């Protein structure tokens, strides 16, 4: 707790609190979740950084998307992301979330995850080891410090585009749009875009 740390606490306590108390949603989206248990138990102990798994998205502000995202899991990821209180941060594990990774030509996985939900940072490695996760956490701290970890703001601003992309891949979603005001304008053209693709492959209604 040196001097400038103390100054940071005094100037922006909320930001510091968000840095040192990251509750991660305990949701195994892909193969990377096998790295999370050793991270939070005795050998590596993520709790000293303030990272604790939480049972529900309502308690969480960090969403670790560990590994490839299948089309079916995307539906659950979007639902969980929208249920997390703001400000919230997402970190993608491995290359599968960046460009599809080794499933680049699979019919069933999502290639670029940040077309559907905003991602604040990626960790290289298939799958990244606990030390890499801690490096990611410290990087996330610097991002929060510099106000660059603004995934949730981008989601709110461009919600229409995100929603359109989601419905393009998943067909009609069972829950109403999270920010009805923003999608007021967006739904019209979003639906138009969806129509031409839909003729090629019809999105299954949920």
């Amino acid at each position, binding site marked *: 707790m040196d001097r400038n740390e103390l100054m940071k606490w005094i100037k922006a306590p909320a930001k510091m609190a968000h840095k040192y108390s990251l509750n991660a949603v305990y949701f195994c989206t892909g193969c990377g979740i096998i790295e999370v248990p050793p991270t939070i138990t005795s050998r590596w102990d993520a709790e000293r950084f303030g990272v604790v798994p939480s049972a529900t998205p309502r308690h969480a502000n960090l969403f670790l998307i560990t590994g490839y995202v299948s*089309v*079916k899991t995307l*539906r659950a990821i979007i639902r969980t992301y929208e249920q997390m209180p703001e400000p919230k941060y997402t970190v993608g594990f491995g290359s599968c979330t960046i460009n*599809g990774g080794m499933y*680049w*030509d*699979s*019919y*069933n996985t*999502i*290639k*670029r995850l*940040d*077309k559907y939900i*905003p991602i604040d940072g990626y960790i290289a490695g298939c799958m990244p080891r606990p030390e890499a996760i801690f490096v990611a956490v410290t990087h996330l701290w610097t991002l929060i410090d510099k106000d660059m970890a603004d995934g949730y703001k*981008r989601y709110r*601003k*461009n919600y229409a*585009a*995100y929603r359109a*992309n989601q419905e*393009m*891949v*998943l*067909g009609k979603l069972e829950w109403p749009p999270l920010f009805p005001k923003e999608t007021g304008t967006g739904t019209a053209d979003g639906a138009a*875009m969806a129509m031409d*693709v839909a003729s*090629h*492959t*019809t*999105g*299954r209604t949920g």
Partner: protein
Amino acid sequence: MNLPLAIRLGSTFQSIDVESGSSGRLVVQVPGESVVPVLTFLKEEGYGYLQLVSCVDWIDRGALQLVYLLSCYTEDEIGGEEGSQEVFVKTNVPRGRASVPSAIGVYEIAEPYEREIHELYGVHFEGHPRLTPLFLERDYEIPPFRKDFDTKQYVADVFDSVPPVKEEG
């Protein structure tokens, strides 16, 4: 008289040929319509457990091959001299109009396997209670596991056509 299983099988059914596969397994080639009778016969023989139903797409021969793997866990000797614990039952189905009677009547466990094969290979199983989708979220003209399904083209059409989210302002 416990003649070896292969001979008994050959005698009861006409148009099948039986040979012994690797490590003592029996491989039985069966025409489409007589799959269920063979399965019931083998079940009475003691092969009470259907391990899996899988499908192979021989695109050059224009046929989808269904493979039923049966095994038995009773102690006494069943088949020939050293007793074959497992039996493969294979049947070929034309790729165009792929349809086979469902094996649920004989083995209940076949239900999810047949649903999966129906979804991924497009083989229709008559008498199956619910051939609804199991894994896939979207509809496909050509079932994805068939060899003539072009995944790269599909990915280009569906996923690459989704525009990245532009930063407004």
